[in-house]
């Protein structure tokens, strides 16, 4: 059964017209026979989400992600096409959207719950639970205008997730509060998944999408340009759309006395690829061009996860494979064998510098995205060599 079904969904906004519309503006435009130009925030998007699945929507800013969520939530009306949802729907489009600043936390809990369609009786029964989850038991009689922004969203999240929706829409609200609260939020999301709920979540945190979603949609300029297995879609996003428009913090610098030329990532079969398997080798053929003879250059690499965690870095100096000199063009091969990274998205950075690090000839930071797929089901970021063994000796009766 499909929990969400969208058919040729489209949403157009009028371009131009800064600020709220005015009577005079509309009249003069109508008299001059001029019409607003249309801007399609979303165009011809069709999909179905099976009940119980979690789908992540990714894409650069302005790609139509929030419009899509708004259309599914029913807060905006489609210009074209239809969207249908099955079961009770709740949206975390904005936490604490209905809070009234002058009312107390307690009053706002009931108001917000009513907005989300939770019966008063349910709220009353679960009130202590909500307050405990938000961790605000001492502040419930205080007007929310005196809350910190963290307290505000925590209360909003606690209310919104207390109800028992069949379909939950989440718009980039998981990154609220401090780390402890974020972990609680993610636990809540996992709990929803365990209970077989359908989730549609928009996030810029690619790692979250990868970790939680069964499927990912990539939106670009209002169109769905890719969908499927999250790591593949995320890779497509990183390689094709992120660099353009500076969405990615990738940078390149150096004196360019030596330059990278062709850099090719190859799998175990030597074929060019951007998707690799845990436990198999990866080769990176780094082409270079030295404009003059460079004595003892150092080639280095480093790997970061999709959300910027530095995983590992090394260079020819540390690896004790010094390069005496380079001149002209050539290729140096970096091999990672076996690849001990677990499933996910990663970035490879490359560098050429002088042995004392004083001169950076050429650096490319976060330049080469790649995906690792892990055939085993073990969770984590990194495969550690691990083994279990019973130690000899009798087991004692208790």
């Amino acid at each position, binding site marked *: 059964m499909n929990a969400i079904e969208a058919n040729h969904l489209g949403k157009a906004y009028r371009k131009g017209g800064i600020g*709220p519309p*005015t*009577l005079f503006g509309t009249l003069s435009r109508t008299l001059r026979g001029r019409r607003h130009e249309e801007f399609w925030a979303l165009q011809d998007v069709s999909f179905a989400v099976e009940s119980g699945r979690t789908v992540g929507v990714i894409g650069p800013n302005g790609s139509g992600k929030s419009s899509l969520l708004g259309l599914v939530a029913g*807060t905006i009306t489609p210009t074209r096409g239809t969207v249908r949802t099955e079961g009770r729907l709740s949206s975390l489009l*904005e936490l604490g*959207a209905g809070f009234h600043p002058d009312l107390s936390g307690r009053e706002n809990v009931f108001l917000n719950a*009513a907005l*989300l369609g939770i019966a008063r009786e349910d709220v009353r029964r679960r009130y202590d639970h909500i307050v405990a989850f938000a961790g605000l038991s001492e502040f419930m009689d205080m007007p929310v205008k005196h809350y910190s922004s963290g307290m505000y969203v925590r209360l909003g999240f606690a209310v919104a997730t207390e109800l028992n929706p069949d379909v939950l829409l989440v718009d980039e609200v998981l990154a609220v509060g401090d780390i402890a609260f974020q972990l609680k939020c993610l636990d809540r999301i996992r709990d929803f998944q365990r209970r077989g709920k359908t989730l549609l979540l928009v996030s810029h945190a690619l790692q979250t999408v990868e970790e939680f979603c069964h499927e990912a949609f990539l939106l670009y300029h209002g169109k769905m340009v890719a969908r499927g297995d999250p790591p593949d879609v995320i890779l497509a996003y990183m390689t094709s759309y992120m660099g353009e428009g500076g969405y990615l913090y990738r940078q390149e610098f150096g004196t360019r006395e030596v330059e990278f030329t062709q850099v090719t990532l190859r799998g175990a079969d030597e074929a060019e690829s951007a998707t690799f398997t845990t436990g198999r080798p990866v080769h990176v053929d780094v082409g270079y061009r030295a404009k003059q003879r460079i004595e003892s250059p150092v080639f280095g690499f480093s790997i970061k996860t999709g959300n910027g965690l530095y995983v590992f870095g090394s260079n020819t100096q540390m690896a004790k494979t010094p390069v005496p000199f380079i001149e002209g063009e050539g290729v140096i091969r970096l091999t990672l064998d076996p690849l001990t990274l677990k499933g996910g998205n990663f970035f490879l950075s490359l560098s050429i510098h002088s042995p004392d690090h004083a001169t950076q000839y050429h650096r490319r930071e976060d330049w080469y995205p790649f995906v690792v797929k892990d055939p085993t089901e073990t969770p984590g970021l990194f495969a550690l060599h691990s083994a279990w063994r019973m130690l000899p000796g009798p087991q004692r009766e208790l």
Partner: protein
Amino acid sequence: MNLLRDILAHRELLQNLVARDIKSRYKGSALGFLWSILNPLFMAVIYIFFLRLLAGRGVPHEDVIIGVFAWQFTVQCVTGGMTCITGNSNLVKKVYFPRVLLPISVVVANLINFLLTLAVQLVLVAVLLAMKGSHLAGWTAALPAIIVYHSLFNLSLALLVAAANVYFRDTQHLVGLLLSAWFFVSPVMYNLSFVEKFAGPALTPAYLLNPVALIITAYRAAQVPGALFPWSWSAAGAWVWPLALLVLAWRIFQRAQRNFADWL
């Protein structure tokens, strides 16, 4: 009817919205609810004083008081209705619920407010009448019906201005002007017999096509002995057309609400 089904299905939300409106209205003011009574009372006193001073025409005090209290109810519904969508843009853009609950909650909150002020107003009118050796008319039993009718009329206005203000922010300025004009053409600080003296009895039925004139006259007929309601076929017609307006306003609002999120 759609209207009733929507309200029933979301009555808890409606209760909450009304409570929010009422609670937040007087938060932080020392006199609180008293302002609801003081406002129309001051207005009535000012009008009575200046009418005496300037015109010297004999409009009974109780008529002015009834008029001002009723007029305040309509004004508050219109001004509250005007901002009920634009002022809750965050809510409208981010949470789905029937939008119509917002103008309805404005009217209900003001109705509750009006009922409380009405209690004070009834006492005032009774005292004023007693000073003349008179007493409240027996028609006060008809008040609930008039109040319901008045509220429905206010709802149609709230629906219209709420929707209009989303599309044209000029509405707030325009409505301010229209309200002051409407105040003067409606029998708030004068009464129907004043109109009859002024324009002749033939025009009275046409005058009652103004629903505010109709409603205020009905309030007076229900409370002041001798202020009878001029029943006629055309007056009966005057009762019907505001109901058609409600249906129309409802339709317009429902059409308009589809694009609210885009325009806010």
